[in-house]
C-alpha cells in the first residue's frame, strides 16, 4: 500500500451537481460480484449513463477528468468501498461536494482521495467554468484549503484529521493501528464482556 503525501491535486474536472447520489448509482450492485476491485472503473455510474446519454461521464470532453464536483450528501447509502474504488479507477483523484455521506467520506480517506466540501454557490461557479472550458485545470489545495480554477477561486473545508493524514502521507491507517497492538491486547482485558462481566 503506497503511503504518499497528498498536499494538492491538479487535474481537469467533471461536474455532477445532483443531490443524494447513492452508492448504488455510483456502482450498481451487480458489479459487486467480484473478489478484487479491478475493472470497476468502467462501470462507474453504469445505469445512469445507460439511461442518460448526456450524462457527464459519457461525454468525450470529460474523459480523463481527475476531479469530481458533486452535490449534497454524495455517496449516501451502502458502505461499499467499491463506489470510491470505481471512481478512482475511472480516474478521479479528488472530490469536491456540497456534503458527503459519512461512510463514503471515510472510504475516500482510506484510498487517499481527498474529499472536500464547498458551498453550492461556489460549486455552481465551478461547474459553469468547466462547462465553458472542459480542459480547464483545477487545483484542490489541501494546505490552503482552496480550489482554484482559472479566475474562479473559493475556500473548501475538510476535517483536520483527514486532511493531516493525507498531507503527511499517513493515510495507511492499518499501519498506524498496528503500532498499538500491545495496547489493544491490554485494553481488551478491561472490556466487561471479554472478562466475564467482572471488569
Amino acid at each position, binding site marked *: 500500500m503506497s503511503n504518499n503525501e497528498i498536499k494538492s491535486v491538479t487535474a481537469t474536472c467533471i461536474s455532477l451537481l445532483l443531490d*443524494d447520489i447513492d452508492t448504488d448509482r455510483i456502482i450498481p450492485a451487480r458489479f*459487486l*460480484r467480484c473478489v478484487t476491485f479491478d475493472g470497476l472503473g468502467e462501470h462507474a455510474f453504469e445505469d445512469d449513463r445507460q439511461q442518460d446519454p448526456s450524462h457527464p461521464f459519457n461525454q468525450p470532453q470529460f474523459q480523463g477528468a481527475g476531479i469530481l464536483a458533486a452535490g449534497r450528501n454524495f455517496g*449516501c447509502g*451502502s458502505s*461499499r468501498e467499491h463506489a470510491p474504488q470505481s471512481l478512482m479507477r475511472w480516474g478521479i483523484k479528488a472530490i469536491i461536494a456540497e456534503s458527503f455521506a459519512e*461512510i463514503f467520506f471515510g472510504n475516500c480517506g482510506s484510498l487517499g482521495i481527498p474529499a472536500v466540501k464547498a458551498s453550492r454557490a461556489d460549486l455552481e461557479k465551478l461547474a459553469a467554468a468547466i462547462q465553458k472550458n472542459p480542459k480547464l485545470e483545477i487545483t484542490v489545495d489541501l494546505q490552503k484549503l482552496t480550489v482554484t480554477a482559472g479566475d474562479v477561486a473559493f475556500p473548501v473545508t475538510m476535517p483536520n484529521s483527514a486532511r493531516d493524514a493525507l498531507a503527511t502521507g499517513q493515510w495507511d491507517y*492499518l499501519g498506524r493501528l498496528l503500532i498499538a497492538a500491545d495496547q489493544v491486547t491490554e*485494553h481488551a482485558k478491561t472490556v466487561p464482556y471479554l472478562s466475564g*462481566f467482572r471488569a
Partner: protein
Amino acid sequence: MSDKRNLFNKVWDLHTVQTLPGGQTQLFIGLHLIHEVTSPQAFEILRDRKLKVAFPERTIATVDHIVPTGSQARPFLDDLAEQMMSAIEKNCADFGVTLLDLKDDRQGIVHVVGPEQGLTQPGMTIVCGDSHTSTHGAFGSIAIGIGTSNVAEVLATQTMFLNRPKVRQIVVNGKLAPGVYAKDVILYIIQKLGVQGGVGYAYEFAGSTFDVMTIEERMTVCNMSIEGGARCGYINPDQTTVDYLKGRPFSPKGAEFDRAAVWWLSLASGDDAHFDDVVEFNAADIEPTVTWGITPAQSVGVGQPLPRICEVAPEEQTLIREALKFMGLEEGQPIKGTKIDVAFIGSCTNSRMSDLREAARIVEGHKVASHVKAIVVPGSQLVRKQAMAEGLHLIFEAAGFEWRAAGCSMCLAMNPDKLQGREVCASSSNRNFKGRQGSPTGRTLLMSPAMVAAAAIEGHVADIREFAGAAV
C-alpha cells in the same frame, strides 16, 4: 454523582484505546461481523502484508447477499457468486474465522443472525462491512457500517480510527395507531429529518413508543438509521433486551448472565443525560407510510397525496422532479391505488418472525392479485424453520406467495431475485434507490410488511387500515 453521559458516550469511552492529537479515537471493536461481498479484498490485504486476524473469536462470518433463495446447489449457476462463496470459505478456513455457511442452520442475513445468536449484546462496539450494521443498535450497542479497508483494519487489529459523532436524541411518545408499525415510525422520522439530517450524529431513539416495542421492532427502527444519514442508531437496553438475550447460544450463562444484565441496564442514558440535540415527535401523527420516490425520505402517509413541486423548497425541486419522472408518478396524485407488479417481504429490515407472522395474518384466506409476483424470504434459516413449524409457509403458499430460502434476495441486485424492466415493487426492504432491486429502471415502494401483504392481495398500494379482514 450521576453519570451525565448518554449510552453512546459511555460505550465509546469504554472502548477507547487512545485518542490521537487530531481528535480521532482508536476504538476497540467488540464484535466484527463479515459477509462475502465486502471481505474478500480485506483478506487479500492481510495476505499481502502477512498479517493474521487479531481476535478470530470476536469475528463471525456468514453469507447472505449473493445466496440464491431458490436452488442452492453448488456450484451456483452464477460463476461470480460461486467465486465469492469459495473465497469466503477459503478465507475463513485460512484465518481461523467461524463461518455460518449454507450447510449451517444458523446462516442468514448478517443483521438477523447476530441478534438471533445472542452475538449482539448491549454495550458492545459492533462493526460490519455493511451500512445496515446500525440494526444492532437495537440492543444498546454502538453498531456501525464500515468500508473494506476498515474491514482489513479490524481483522488485523480489532480496532479502527473514528471521529466521535454528536448524539441526537429522537423522542417519540405515545401509542401507535392500529396498522402503524415500527417501519412506519422510522420512515416518518426520515421523512421529517431528511436523508442527510443524521450526518455527523448517532441517533438515540427514546420515548414511550420505543419502550413498548419488541426487540424485533427496535431492530427495524435502528436498521434504517443509516437511511437518515446517521451511521448508527440505538435504543437503551431495558428488561425487554435482557429477556430477549436470555438463553441465546452466544449469550452469557448462569451467574455471568446476571452480572451481564446488571451491567447492560447500567449503560442506559439517565434522565439527565446530555445530548447534542433533541427532536420530538408524536406517535399519534404517524400513519402507515409509503415511499413514492428514489430516496427513503420521499414518502407520504398512505392516505396523503404526493407533494406538489411548487410546495417544496427550491433546492429540493430538482430531486423531486427527477424522482417523479423515474417513478412515472404525477405530483399531487394519491399513492394509494398505485399498481404494483411485485411484492417482496424480506430483508434485514423486516424478515423476522414478527414480520412474517403479521404478514401471514393479513394474507390468510386471500389470494395474491393475478398480475402480482409475490415472494417471502425469511431473514435466516432459523426464522424459516420456526415459520414452517408454525405453518406460516402454508398460509403464504395458499395465498400465492413463493416461499424461499434465507438471504438478502430482492433487497439488492446480487442474486437471481431481481425486478425486470420497469416493474413496480411493494417492498419491506430499506432502499428505494434507482436500480436498487436489480433492474436499472425498476421501481421500489418501501412500506411495512403488513402493507406489502395488503398490496400483494389488492394488486396496488392499499391502506392496511381499510384492508378487508386485517382487523388491525
